């Protein structure tokens, strides 16, 4: 099936910013590796946590997580060049590999200078950095750390390694956005492509499961009365200019019509935050040229803590009403900080992939973080019901 011209054309509006096209993606989450695993979990409305008690020697706050317990990078990318990768880098690289396999974008020597990477994180691999600190405390001499592992302890490791593997010489950026990372990455990517710095980007987020991240989730959830299990994974999207993709006669999997973000005082009694998220969401719809009643689904942040989830629901209801379906992706993938935002987008696209009846449907992503950051994106998606990409 081919989407009709009417479905493909976004409404014209003077306030419409450059639309990004997604022409392929790769995702690894606690629900499994690959797009189908996430689509199945969504359809089932449930994805069990895994027993993680054997993964690390260090104590963990709980025995389960939405983690890829048996994930080994060499099973996917081979041994060569991967032996010193930490888990974050490994997850990101496999997501990049899957994204390249999923897209019809041609990558050649001529295009590598115009291709780059924008990767979101929270603090890189907290385990790699923390292990470095620990070595300085427990080694016989404080400087007896492993120099070969030093690049892992720096936040832009995964993006740098991906550039080396794929020979991508264009812009290579890492954005520490925590919960907001995916929306930061989309805005940043849109600017790069809109201003002509790049033609195509691998844009996504990664977060690893580790004792450090498990405890971070534990303390954050406990402080605000939540019970979400930790999660991990990566989702990487191939993004290009939607206009350029169409001009080349190619068909996108989705279009990102607008992304708006802001920072407000964190959710609380004064309502500043709800008003802020409301404003982001309303602004995103306006810039996308989309009416609230056209939105069919909202992939919410669903942080699992009453204060945040109530604020989010209040803002979503204020703009979209109770009508659109709510997809609580974190119930399936756990709290994976920056990767959670990428999973929201991946979940919407995974659903489109297997459901042609949804072709052209409009969805919204909402995001919020503990420190007051908020944002929303408007997404239009399509299936690949004809089994190919174009």
């Amino acid at each position, binding site marked *: 099936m081919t989407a009709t011209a009417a479905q493909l054309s976004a409404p014209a509006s003077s306030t419409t910013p450059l639309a990004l096209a997604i022409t392929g993606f790769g995702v690894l989450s606690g629900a499994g590796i690959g797009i189908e695993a996430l689509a199945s979990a969504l359809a089932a409305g449930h994805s069990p946590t895994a027993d993680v008690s054997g993964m690390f020697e260090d104590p963990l706050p709980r025995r389960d997580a939405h983690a890829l317990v048996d994930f080994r990078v060499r099973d996917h990318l081979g041994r060569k060049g991967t032996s010193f990768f930490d888990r974050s880098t490994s997850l990101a690289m496999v997501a990049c590999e899957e994204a390249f396999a999923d897209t019809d974008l041609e990558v050649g020597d001529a295009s590598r200078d115009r291709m*780059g990477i924008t990767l979101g994180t*929270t603090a890189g691999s907290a385990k790699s950095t923390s292990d470095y*600190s620990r070595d300085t405390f427990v080694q016989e001499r404080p400087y007896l750390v492993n120099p070969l592992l030093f690049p892992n302890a720096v936040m832009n490791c995964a993006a740098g390694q991906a550039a080396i593997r794929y020979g991508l010489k264009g812009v290579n950026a890492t954005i*520490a956005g925590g919960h907001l990372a995916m929306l930061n990455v989309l805005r940043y990517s849109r600017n790069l492509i809109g201003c002509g*710095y790049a033609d195509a980007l691998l844009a996504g987020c990664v977060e690893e499961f580790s004792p450090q991240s498990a405890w971070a989730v534990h*303390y954050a959830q406990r402080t605000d009365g939540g019970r979400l299990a930790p999660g991990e994974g990566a989702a990487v999207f191939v993004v290009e200019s939607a206009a350029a993709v169409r001009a080349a006669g190619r068909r996108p999997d989705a279009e990102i019509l607008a992304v708006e973000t802001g920072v*407000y005082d964190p959710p609380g009694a004064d309502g500043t935050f709800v008003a802020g998220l409301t404003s982001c969401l309303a602004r995103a719809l306006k810039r996308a040229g989309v009416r609230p009643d056209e939105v069919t689904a909202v992939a919410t942040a669903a942080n699992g803590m009453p204060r945040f989830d109530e604020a989010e629901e209040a803002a979503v209801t204020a703009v979209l009403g109770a009508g659109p379906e709510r997809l609580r992706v974190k119930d399936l993938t756990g709290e994976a900080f920056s990767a959670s935002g990428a999973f929201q987008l991946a979940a919407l696209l995974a659903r489109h992939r297997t459901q042609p009846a949804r072709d052209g449907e409009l969805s919204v992503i909402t995001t919020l973080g503990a420190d007051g950051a908020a944002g929303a994106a408007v997404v239009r998606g399509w299936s690949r019901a004809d089994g190919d990409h174009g």
Partner: protein
Amino acid sequence: MRRVVITGLGPVSSIGIGAPAYGEALRAGVNGVSPIACFDSTGFPYFMAGEVHEFQPTELVRRLSVDEWGRTSLFAASAARLAVADAGIDEEELAASRAGSSMGTTGGESQVLERLTGDALERGVHRLDAGLVRQVSSARLSQAVNRELRLTGDAVTLSTACSASNYALGYAYDLIRTGEADYMIAGGADSVGRWSHAGFYRLGALTEKACSPFDKNRSGIITGEGGAALFLESLDSALARGARIHAEVLGYGVNCDANHMVAPLRESIAACMRLAHRNAGVEAADVDYICAHGTGTPANDQVEAGAVVDVFGERPPPISSTKSMLGHTMGAASGLGAIASVLGITGSFLPPTINYSTPDPEMPLIDPVANEARRADVRIAQVNGFAFGGNNAIVMLGRYS
């Protein structure tokens, strides 16, 4: 596209806090490197760093509760405060505008993570401070800036290691020139930590006492810290409010070596310079000053000097390294370099490379502005930033006329 100008400067550095103090120190070639105080350096063969001993966040930030924010976020928010004060813009007006921040960093709040690591070893991971755990996210650097100044626009923390401030400046420049934002605060912040001191030592990149970029006997970096913030707005906005215009952002270039995680690549760095010139609409011959990445490691300086000759030919402009004074402030480095360049443009001087004694015969064409600041007419300055991962970013600044 709108022209973009810099109307506020906010340096928080080991040689001075605030633009006047920082500018004076640059002119005087002050050495900001001293014995490490922020962690117990017992057992480390080398124990010097460019720490900001005088940093008192309570004296600089007004809205943030300093107990709730890590040192690096407080560097960022303090620098932003200084930049806004220097810009002379009304705080209420700013808060009501389309305004945000983009801040660069290498380690983010890794010194908070380091403290938690120590706490976990000492008293167990079950008894950590939940407030401290929350401070680990590097996203908080730019969020601290926005929260401190009540900015409701973008808050982006670019964690592209040691060229991150240039990435941040470039993004802020684009948001203003395309009309996406009206005011942006851009720069970077980082803190000295045990883990990175150890890492650089083991990598063989650390020097013992003094950082001497471009010197024949240079032997490495000294880690440093601080915050840098520049206040950016459109030229029309600056003119309309009668603001003092320090300099103009002409453009920037970003590329990636895609070659090696820690070894820089000469041809790729040269390509980045050409890209920056092209995007900024300037010719190499028009560049009056290069604020070097200039880490002081044998490899970096060799590659950077080589790339400069490849691009500029037999007579490259003077190129100096503020890292000789500040140490390597990591994610703040190119931000502090940009501020130094702006001060050079407005004050007609070149910041020096201190600790310089022996010319390197391997780089005969390089003029490192040895040891003393020099009077010079700086109309166009190039700020270099290179990083782990092969991440190169170069910002071009010009005198406003």
